[in-house]
């Protein structure tokens, strides 16, 4: 048929057309089945708008779960300009409610952005204001929940905790240091919108915010509260330039409490200077430690075996000549003849110069370094100071002599308490720390945990035991008496350091300090208190700092549930020929009764009469056998 050729060509066209259709179908299939994931993801992000939901910042709590920093939920205003229908009306009403000018509000409402916040007037709204806004029922005006940092005990532990800014970002202290853990990740309400920004009637997707990691500190709330209270008392009593206190577990290096004055209120950080906020004095400040440093000299001398505390005597004439310098004892006229234990008890400077000289500069300085001075302790806080030591080649006889009793070296409080912990805990220098662990809030799983770290061994167990004994004796018989706690064996050392200004020691301006621990036979807590220039009081560590340390130690007894130490513990101290005995109560007894009760002690009388009105040391004190007990006599029995 003549049409055959035509029809053949039509068939060819048909085949080409069908082939093209197959190509198109293939391409659609490729887009919809192979490229699906990619395109769907891109399209979804094109279609969806996020209303952010802030994550709650991680909690910071003490070792027993007492929350120190948590969050309160507030409401903030969010505007989605594309959804606002009557921009003038909305601007007007919002401006009225928030107290912003109309023009400024109009700028917010008509801004070319997907989500607009009114900052800061629209943030952290009160319930009433939020309610008023939500009652307007404007489209495109949203109220979103925001969480705001709340410092439960206001100024407590402020330097350690730090503070956060308006956007909940950590700006100092642990808040800054652990920012990445504390923040968590933002959640959102995803809703679908058309290209003009209006909301589509599709299900919104809720993306849960991931709350921040919780931080558990080694701090004990009760001890910390005690420290804060005592520091406040010091400030109101003595108006010092500054004051600080640290409590530490000498066996682990855990910080139980830490604070200083001046401090600040993290919620009102704007009211303070940057120095007040950033200077965490217990780790930042450096100064001459004074007599508390004698513990180091004592430890070195005992470890090196250059002194026998009990049998060796030292005569203090009130000063000692070292090259061209005459080093005076703090006590005018000197302490006269003493055993070296009494040198320690009396904090006798010439006695310690003697110890320093016996050690020699190499040995003494090697111990100072072994105890961690001149180097950061490595505590997990920002802003730690280093302190300053003499360079060994610059140390002459004078420098050696002054260093031995704590002058001419510069140390930080944290170095001081860490070193003393090593001296009394059996000889291990520990790395102090304040963050116990990081805990995931949902599952409770531990993300990071700090464990006690022994930096090095400094003393033998035996020497450490001896140091404890000597320091207990300081409290029982010596300069540390104001720290004495009945029934608990307190050890400690006072310190009164002259301050240096432009290379010259200042007159009548001291840093008074006390470092104390208990129980002396098995220390559970060590407390360091330092007060810079207390006014209106004799500036001695024993009179100002020791009573404060005593109160903190007493609170620590309750907080840590430390048992009263009974007589059995005395046996531990029966080394050499020395025996320790507990002083009985003789108050109210007749003179005769008292004499028989105090058998084994040397009695020193004052006053006259037949009855004992007062005794010293008080009942329960443990002193050397044959030690001195003073009794005040009167004519009537005490009531």
């Amino acid at each position, binding site marked *: 048929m003549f049409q055959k050729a035509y029809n053949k060509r039509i068939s060819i*066209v048909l085949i080409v057309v069908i082939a093209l259709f197959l190509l198109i179908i293939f391409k659609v299939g490729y*887009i*919809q089945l192979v490229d699906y994931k990619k395109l*769907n993801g891109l399209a979804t992000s094109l279609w969806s708008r996020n209303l952010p939901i802030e994550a709650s910042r991680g909690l910071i709590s003490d070792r027993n779960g007492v929350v120190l920093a948590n969050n309160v939920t507030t409401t903030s205003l969010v505007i989605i300009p594309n959804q606002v229908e009557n921009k003038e009306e909305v601007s007007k009403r919002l401006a009225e409610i928030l107290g912003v000018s109309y023009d400024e509000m109009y700028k917010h409402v008509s801004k070319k952005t997907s989500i607009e916040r009114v900052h800061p007037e629209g943030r952290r709204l009160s319930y009433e204001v939020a309610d008023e806004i939500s009652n307007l029922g404007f489209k495109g005006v949203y109220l979103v929940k925001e969480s705001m940092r709340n410092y439960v005990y206001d100024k407590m532990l402020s330097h350690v905790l730090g503070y956060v800014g308006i956007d909940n970002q950590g700006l100092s202290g642990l808040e800054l240091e652990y920012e990445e853990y504390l923040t968590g990740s933002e959640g959102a309400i995803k809703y679908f919108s058309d290209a003009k920004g209006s909301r589509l009637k599709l299900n919104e997707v809720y993306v849960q915010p991931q709350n921040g990691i919780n931080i558990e500190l080694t701090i004990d709330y009760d001890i910390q509260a005690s420290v804060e209270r005592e520091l406040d008392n010091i400030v109101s009593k003595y108006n010092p330039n500054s004051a600080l206190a640290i409590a530490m577990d000498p066996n682990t290096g855990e910080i139980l409490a830490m604070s200083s004055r001046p401090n600040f209120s993290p919620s009102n950080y704007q009211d303070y200077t940057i120095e007040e906020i950033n200077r965490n004095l217990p780790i930042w400040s450096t100064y001459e430690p004074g007599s508390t440093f004698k513990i180091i000299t004592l430890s070195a001398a005992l470890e090196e075996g250059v002194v026998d505390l009990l049998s060796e005597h030292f005569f203090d004439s009130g000063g000692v000549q070292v090259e061209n310098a005459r080093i005076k004892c703090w006590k005018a006229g000197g302490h006269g003849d003493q055993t070296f234990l009494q040198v320690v008890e009396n904090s006798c400077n010439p006695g310690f110069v003697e110890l320093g000289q016996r050690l020699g500069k190499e040995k003494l300085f090697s111990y100072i370094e072994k105890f961690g001075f001149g180097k950061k302790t490595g505590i997990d806080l920002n802003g730690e100071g280093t302190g300053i030591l003499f360079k060994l080649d610059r140390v002459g006889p004078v420098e050696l002599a002054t260093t031995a009793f704590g002058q001419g070296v510069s140390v930080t409080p944290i170095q001081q308490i860490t070193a003393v912990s090593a001296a009394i805990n059996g000889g291990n220098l520990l790395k102090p720390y304040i963050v116990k662990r990081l805990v995931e809030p949902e599952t409770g799983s531990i993300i990071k945990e700090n464990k006690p770290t022994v930096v090095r061994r400094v003393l033998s167990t035996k020497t450490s035991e001896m140091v404890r004994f000597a320091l207990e004796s300081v409290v029982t018989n010596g300069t540390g008496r104001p720290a004495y706690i009945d029934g608990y064996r307190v050890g400690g050392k006072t310190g009164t350091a002259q301050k240096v200004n432009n290379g010259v020691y200042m007159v009548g301006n001291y840093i008074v300090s006390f470092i104390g621990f208990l129980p002396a036979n098995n220390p559970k807590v060590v407390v360091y208190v330092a007060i810079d220039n207390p006014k209106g009081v004799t500036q001695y560590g024993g009179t100002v700092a020791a009573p404060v340390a005593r109160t903190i130690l007493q609170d620590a007894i309750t907080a840590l549930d430390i048992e009263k130490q009974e007589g059995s513990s005395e046996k531990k101290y029966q080394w050499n020929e020395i025996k320790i005995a507990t002083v009985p109560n003789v108050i109210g007894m007749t003179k005769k009764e008292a004499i028989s009760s105090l058998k084994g002690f040397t009695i020193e009388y004052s006053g006259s009469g037949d009855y004992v009105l007062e005794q010293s040391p008080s009942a329960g004190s443990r002193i050397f056998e044959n030690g001195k007990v003073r009794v005040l006599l009167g004519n009537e029995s005490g009531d």
Partner: protein
Amino acid sequence: MKKILQKPDIILTVAVIIISIFGILMIYSSSYVWAEYKFDDPFKYMKSQAMFFIIGVVLMYIVSRIPYELYRKYALVLLGSCMLLLILVIIPGIGTVRNGSRSWFGIGGFGIQPSEFTKLALIIFVAKYMSNYQKDIKTFKKGIVPILGITMLVFALIMLQPDFGTGVIIVMTIIALMYIGGVNMKFFIIAGIIGVLGAVGLIIIAPYRLKRIISFINPWEDPLGSGFQIIQSLYAIGPGGLLGMGIGESIQKHFYLPEPQTDFIFSIISEEFGFLGVAIVAGLLITIIYRGLKIAKNANDLFSKYIAFGITFGLAFQAILNLMVVVGLIPVTGVTLPFLSYGGSSLLITLVSIGILLNISRHTPNT
């Protein structure tokens, strides 16, 4: 020459009616957002399309009963009047501008595009010419020159609007018709090569043209410019997946895809019905094309064979052009999808064309 007429091609009829009704539904689904926004009447486009569909079906029925021989008689008149309309439409004040082209006669809110009618008139005219000069058609002088001459004249008039898409469809349809008629294709192959070289020359002169042209390959190079429509189309097709988001559930029609009821209606169909819907729509189109070409094959005479082929090929070419744009195989050309895209006069003329096909089918044995 009285002859018992066959029944019209029932498969073609059913396919055309199903796809047109589906088109009306999809025009509603894809346009109600825009329609409500622009005219405060979500049914605006749907109502207009439905009205043209009803008129179109009536016309299709009437035309299917008009013996095609009648067109042989009036071929010149039809083409002449169409070309007159083409001249009128480009005169400002008479023709109205839509989407940058002066292609419309505005009649009471509706638009009539004379280029659509011209396409049909030209097919009829060329069909008549080629069937009359069957023997001379193979020569260059009597075959190619007059047909190509009149075609290029029509093309030039349409390009004055300008309406590149319709112009290309008309030219390609006539060239295909000449191929069926047995015209020596050497000329077109050479012309094609010259065309490609010319295009390459233009690109060398102004390289930005290349960038615009190949933006369909990687539309993300210029996501807010030349790649914009393709990206928005892909964002509709992609998320459709295998089964689609469900009827009415498209998100891209919410102002993301511009004018989704016209050129890019296939994107919305893909989004709402997924690959399955695409396969069904493609199946319907292939059925229509297959039946149309079958009618051409079975035609009793060359005149009706050419007309049937020309009409069917025009539809097929337009559909392929539209679909290839929508899926990103070729650059954006601005061609609508027959039966499915919104456009009253286009649907009307398509249905009238189908009417002619049906009439031809009645004169052929349905075997």
